[in-house]
Structures are given as C-alpha cells and as structure tokens.
C-alpha cells in the first residue's frame, strides 16, 4: 500500500466511495450552479454583465429586489422581537413544566408555512374572520387592510410566526452560554437592568444571534410558497418561479438565480466573519454561579402567558386551515356556518390529490433512502477517517443548508434539459435527488452526532476479537447509532413530503405532482379547490407533527441541535 494511503487509513472501498461522492456532488450541486452562472454571464459566447445591468437599472426589477430584501429584513426583525424576550424568560427562570413550554416553542416550526399561509389569507383578508369579528363587535366601521401593500405584511407575519423558533433556539443557546460571573462583574461596577443587558449580555450573545438571524433572513429571502399563496408576485422567488416556463428564451431567470446565490453567499460570509471574529472564550468556571432563578408566582404567570400566547398566535393560521377543511360554508362570517367531512373524502377520491399523495410517498421514500445511505457513509468517514480534503467533504455535505431550494431546482431544470434527466419529460429522478440533496445536511449531522458519541475503542475492541470492518459496522456501530439514524431519516422523510420550492419548480406535469404542488394547483381552482387544498394541508401537518414527535422520541433533547447553525 502506498505510504500516503497508509498514513490516512484509506481502504480501496473508502477511496471508491469518495470518488463516487465527488461525482455526485459535482453533477448535482456544482454543475447546475455552474450552468446557471454560465447562462447568466455569457452572452453570445462572451462574458457580459448586461443582464445584471438591466436588472439593476430597470425600475421594475429594482423594486422586486428591494421588496425581497425588505421582506427578509422585516421577518428577521419581527422574529428577533418575538424570540429575545422569550429566550430571556425561558433561560433565566426556572419554572414548572419547562419541558412542555419548550415543546410549545418548537411547535410552530414544524407547521408548514405554505399551509399556514392559506389559513392566514382566510383570517386577514378584506372580508376575513378578523375584520368581520371587529365589524361585528363594532370596533371598526370599515374593513382594515391587514395584509398591507398587496400582502407584504401578511407574508412577514406568516414567515415570522413560522421562523421564530429557529431564532429562539439560537438565542437561548447563546444566552445560556453567557458566563453569569461576567454579568456579576458588570453589576459590581454599577450596571443593571436594560443597561446591563445592552452593554454586556447582548454583546456576548451576538455570535449566537447572528447564527440564527442569517438562517431566518435567507429562509425568508428565498421563500417561494408563502408569497405565491398571497399572490404577491413582486419578489425574486416568485419571479424566478414564473421564469421557469420560458427558461430557454429568457436569460433573466438565470440572472435572478445568480443574484440570489451571490446575495446568499455574501450574507453568509458577512455573518460568518462577524460570528467568527467575535467568538468569545467564556471564562473558566471556578465557582459555578447560576444566573437561573426560581420564578415567582407572578413571573410564572408571565412566562406561561408569553409562551402560550405566542404559540397560539402562531397556530392561529393552522387552526383556520383546519376550520376551512371542515367547513361546508364559510363566506362573510367569522366562523364557518356549516361543517362537513366531505373535503377529506374528496382528497381520497379526487384523481389529482390521490395521485399526488402516492407521488409524494414514493418520492420521499426513495429520497430518504438515498439520504440514509449517503448520510451514514459521509458521517462515518468524517468521524472516523483522516484524509486530505476532509474539510471539503464536510463543506459539500453542509452546503445545501446555505443553498436555497429555489436556486438548486432552477439549476436542475436548466442544466439537465435535453438530457436523460429532463424534468419536463420525467421529473422523478431530479425530484428525488433534489429532495435528498437538500435534506442531506440533517442526516449527516444526525449520524455524525451518533458516531461522535460512540467511542472508537468500541469498534477496535470488535476488530480485536476477530470481526472484520463490515461485521463490526453491522454488529457494533450501527446498533449504537440507530436512534440517531432513525431520527435523521424521519426528518428527511417528513420534510421531503412537504418540500415546496423543489416540487413547485420541478414537477411540471400533473401526472408527477407531489402534494405541495397539488395544493397549489387546487388553490387556483374555484369552487371546492381551496377546501380540498386545506384538507390536504391538514393531512400534511398531521404527518409532519407525527413524524417529528417520533424523531423527538428517538433523539430526545438533542433534537433542537439539528436546527441550530
């Protein structure tokens, strides 16, 4: 065996796998991105910035870009305002039923915003429940335009109510990590209350805050489903979506995708720089002082009201979806005037919906299988082998976290058109691959955590008594990380079932529609379309809630770590 291979413990099997992995990443991540860039920058075989000049000078496109940025910024701001006080209350106070409250905090995240948006539209429309209620009660004389600016405010509300748990998780972790003695030192020299928070505590939390903020910002910046439901077309995501149809005639689509990529990269780079440059070494704890205090009765009340209130608010749209799905008649009234189960019957009778459920189950199962295989192998190699380019593999496996689904799906459509994988002929392979690429980081993280917790010596002990590497993997390693693998697989599966942007962009013919695309198509139909769509949304939520509950049982407290940056 050559010396370098011995040094790095690379078996031929590992080498082969790394090679295949390289091909996979090159083909399904790098090539589509490169293809998009090439089409955006190359005009008549020459490098050109003409599309970008056009994009930035044309007032319409400029408005669109500004709208998207505003949307993301507003969402980030609102999530901060919701999460910061909650994080403070939950970290600094010891209160009965904290586990339950923490569970409530995470609940909104698992509710698909795509479905929530349908309910929010029902609630906040010009003659929606809220306005009608206020009119009935006599608080207002004319309906108020809650959605504002053609839906802008509605989108911000839906996204903020969906994304604040991510912010909360990061802020809570950051706050818990602040050494209490640093605050005591500040108190000792005279700072207190808000001043103390502003000058010492919050600055120390900043790395954690930025880690959460960047996730929320990019999510909101590239979200396609919510603006589509609100029919708010002047954002980049929707523009890209509509440009898929004439991808070969209009290169502006490529330019928009490249813009999203560049902005995403810049935001990540800026936040990484900020986080990296300011990662504080907290002091070693000699005498451990805890900043956690028992909540008084009043404080307990405040905490419960805050957490449950926000949770209720976040679930309101989903409640409205459930009501819609059950309503026989809901027109110009606060609540439905008649209830029925027929829409659920229609879900299973209607050819489009039934087929889409079958499609989604099939696609999600295969993509999960692919994720499990790739995830285990990548995590194992990362955790157990030393080799040059390890950092690169890690980066590649984590890249999809920073890669909006929109960008990837658009790249797939363009890059593989006219090939065997053309999405317009049969989108199934590309749907499976895009689902699994996008969820790969969760699977890798889950499996990696398992391998990290399992001491290498347990494997060595098995080799030592005569089991070969594969038998050791089967008898020792896999059983020990089983819970992590199951949790990762459940997460991949359920997110794939309700994936929005890949499904909307890649599934172009009705025969191949997954659930989300079917919901979108139904919403556009008059008559009972929205009702059946709501019923499907409810089924989707039930599935997601059930699988996350299962994953939580397997993963326990470590669940939250999957959603932290």
């Amino acid at each position, binding site marked *: *065996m050559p*010396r370098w291979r*011995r*040094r790095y413990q690379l078996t031929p099997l590992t080498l082969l796998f790394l090679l295949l992995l390289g091909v996979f990443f090159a083909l399904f991540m790098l090539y589509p991105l490169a293809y998009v860039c090439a089409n955006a920058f190359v005009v008549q075989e020459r490098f050109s910035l003409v599309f970008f000049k056009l994009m930035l000078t044309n007032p319409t496109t400029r408005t669109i870009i500004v709208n998207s940025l505003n949307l993301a910024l507003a969402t980030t701001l609102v999530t901060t305002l919701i999460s910061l006080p909650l994080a403070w209350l939950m970290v600094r106070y010891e209160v009965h039923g904290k586990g339950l409250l923490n569970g409530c905090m995470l609940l909104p995240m698992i509710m698909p915003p795509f479905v929530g948006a349908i309910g929010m539209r029902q609630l906040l429309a010009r003659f929606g429940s809220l306005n009608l209620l206020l009119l009935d009660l006599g608080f207002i004389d004319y309906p108020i335009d809650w959605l504002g600016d053609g839906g802008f405010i509605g989108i911000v509300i839906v996204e903020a109510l969906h994304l604040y748990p991510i912010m909360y998780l990061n802020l809570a972790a950051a706050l818990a990590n602040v050494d209490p003695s640093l605050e005591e030192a500040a108190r000792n020299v005279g700072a207190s209350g808000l001043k103390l928070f502003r000058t010492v505590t919050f600055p120390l939390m900043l790395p954690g805050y930025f880690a959460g903020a960047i996730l929320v910002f990019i999510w909101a910046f590239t979200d396609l489903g919510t603006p589509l439901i609100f029919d708010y077309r002047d954002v980049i995501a929707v523009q890209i979506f509509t440009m898929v149809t004439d991808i070969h005639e209009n290169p502006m689509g490529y330019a928009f995708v490249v813009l999203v990529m560049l902005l995403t990269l810049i935001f990540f780079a800026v936040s990484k720089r900020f986080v990296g440059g300011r990662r504080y070494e907290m002091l070693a704890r000699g005498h451990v002082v805890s900043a956690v205090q028992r909540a008084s009765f009043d404080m307990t009340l405040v905490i419960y009201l805050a957490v449950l209130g926000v949770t209720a608010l976040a679930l309101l749209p989903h409640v409205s979806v459930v009501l819609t799905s059950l309503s026989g008649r809901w027109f110009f009234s606060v609540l439905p005037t008649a209830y029925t189960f027929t829409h659920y019957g229609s879900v299973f009778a209607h050819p489009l919906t039934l087929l889409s459920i079958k499609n989604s189950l099939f696609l999600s199962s295969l993509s999960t299988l692919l994720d499990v295989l790739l995830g285990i192998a990548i995590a194992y190699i990362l955790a157990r082998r030393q080799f040059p380019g390890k950092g690169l593999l890690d980066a590649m496996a984590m890249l999809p976290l920073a890669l909006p689904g929109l960008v990837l799906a658009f790249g797939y459509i363009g890059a593989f058109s006219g090939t065997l994988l053309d999405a317009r002929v049969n989108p199934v392979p590309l749907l499976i691959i895009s689902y699994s690429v996008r969820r790969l980081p969760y699977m890798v993280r889950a499996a990696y955590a398992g391998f990290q917790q399992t*001491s290498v*010596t*347990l494997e*060595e*002990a*098995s*080799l*030592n*008594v*005569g*089991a*070969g*590497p594969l*038998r*050791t993997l089967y*008898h*020792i390693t896999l*059983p*020990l990380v089983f819970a992590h693998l199951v949790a990762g697989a459940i997460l991949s599966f359920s997110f794939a079932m309700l994936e929005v942007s890949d499904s909307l962009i890649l599934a172009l013919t009705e025969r191949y529609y997954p659930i989300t695309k079917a919901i979108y198509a139904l919403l556009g139909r008059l008559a009972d379309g929205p009702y059946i769509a709501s019923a499907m949304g409810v089924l989707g939520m039930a599935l997601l809630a059930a699988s996350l509950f299962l994953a939580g049982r397997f993963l326990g407290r470590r669940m939250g770590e999957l959603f932290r940056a």
Partner: protein
Amino acid sequence: MVGVTCEAITKVLGDVKAVDNLCLEIKPGELFFLLGPSGCGKTTMLRMIAGFYQPDAGRILFDGHDVSRVPPHKRHTGMVFQNYALWPHMTVWQNVAYGLRMHKVPDADQHRRVQRALDLVQMTVYAERIPNQLSGGQQQRVALARALVLEPDVVLLDEPLSNLDAQLRLDMRQQITRIHGEIQRTMIYVTHDQSEALSMADRMAVMHRGRVVQVGTPRDLYTRPRTAFVAAFIGETNLLSGQLQETGSLLSVHTPVGVLQAAPASAKLTTGDAVHCSVRPEAFRLCRDAPAPTATTVNCLPGEVQSIMYLGHHEQYVIRLPQDTLVKVVENNPLVRTAEVGEQVYLLCTPQDVVVLPREAANA
C-alpha cells in the same frame, strides 16, 4: 506461547515521531511491561502490535512471522482497553461471547468457554447485567474475560488499572498476576505507574520519547539504571553531577560536594568524563557524628538539615550539602528523629549505592 519481536519500528502521528526506531524482544509467556511517562509512545507501540496502526518503518514478528500488514481482526491478540470499551448494547455474557460468535464457534463450545472466562475473572454472577450496571472494577474484569476467551496468542493491556481507585488497583494487580500464571500466555502491559511495573513485571522496558531506554528485570532497572532518566523515573533519586577521576575496581567521582567512591558502571566511561552520580534517598544513612571510615562506608558527606517531613512509615529529610546542593534522605521506620532542622549531620553510603551514569544521557 508466542514471542513478539519489534524490529526498528518507527511511527509518525501528525508531526510527531511517536515511536522512533524501536527494537524489542518479548519472550514467549512473559508478563512484559512497557513503562514510560505519558506521550512516550508506549500506547502507540501497543496499538501497532494489536494492528490498529501500521508502522511507517520496521517489522513486527509473532514467533518469527511478519504480521506488520495483518489487519487487527486477524492477529489473534486480546486487548484490554484503558476505558474497557464494553459494548453498551450487549450484556456481560454477550460481550464475552461476541468474539466466539465471530469465529463461528459452535454454541455448546461457546457456552463452555464464556463460562470459563467469566469464572476466571470471578464475574459469573453478573453475566446478565449490561455494562452500565457494573462498577469500574467489574467492567475491567469483563474486559479481561472478553480478551482472554479467544485464547489469544498475545494479551495486550493498555493502562488497564488507571481508571480504578487505589485499593482496587492493588487488588487487581494480584488478580492479573494470578491470571497470567493460570493461562500461561504472553502478556504485554502498558502503564505509566512504576510501582505497577516493579511489582508485577517479569521484565520491563522503560520508554522515553519514542525509544526504549533500558530493558531488564524490575530489580535490574531499579538498582542498576543505565541513564539518569531511568534512575529518576523509577523511584526517587538524588543526582549529583561530577567528573570521573579514577577508574578501576572502584570509580571515584569528583563532585562539588566531595569525592564519591562508586561501584564500576555498566556504561563505558573514561577518566575525565562528565557524569551523574545517582544515590537513592533510602541508600543514605544519616549520622550526627563523623564516623570512622570503614571499607563499606567509604562515602561520607557533611551537611546541614534544612527541613524534615514525617510520613508515618518513613521520615524524609532534605539535607543541604556544600555549594547549596540539596539531597533527599529517607529513614525507614523512624522511631525517633535522628537530627533536628539546622543541625550538622553526615551522610554515609556504600560504593554499591552510588550508580555512575553518563551525563549526556540526562536529557536523552
């Protein structure tokens, strides 16, 4: 019984030469110790014998057969890991039986052999427990049973007692020595605890910075260390630097505190060489009056008591010799104090108690 030979082994880990051109000859059936401070390469060497690392250069032979490229699961070694590495998802019985299963041993045979291995370490009553329900000492014994059940050619023990408390450690020393006597197999035992090595080893190798400094029986290494490092690492010692003046039936060394007579050294030394004289604290005898020199106590150094520490079974004095040289002296079974702080005393020792070591080896 299998003998193990290491031929000029070198292993680089990261940027460090963990093992550097190391040669060893371990005899069949021996309880052999690799002793050294942490980071000296002893565990790396053990892991190469087990096959978890491959040497960058050199060969490892089992009974003359080169096994350097044999993967760990085909080496027939039984390893006891420092953290025991018991599989948490299996019972004690399953842990021990696992290796037999891997070798497709028939069920009846398996049962008999697991039973015997558990009997050997006195863990039969715990067979159905899982590792988390066992104490450290019990886990340790299960790990031993798991390593022994396959009747391996070589048993490898990687600091097996370092996670146990002091009393249990003493107990397990006797157990391991007993088991070694019963199973009659070559055992290689890695430790940084010199008292473990001195009390258990047939032979031992002291390692320092990836090299073997000296190999021999415990008594050899304690009484006739060949370098200052060995002298200081095994037990306590006083090192007095000086210059060799005379060679012959007795060596005489000129030191700042006076001339010392010593028994002939094992290293090749010539007149004028810079040397260290190593004298164990318990080798000095403390006197209040200058004695008449006799044939056995030719070395006599005057000094002043600087401090005294009473430790029960012995009393430790620090004596200031001329030129502000400090030495430690230990008096065993001290019924009364020989001298008080500040008193003038004389230190006596025989030439056999003075070991002359080459000076440059001090930082080898």
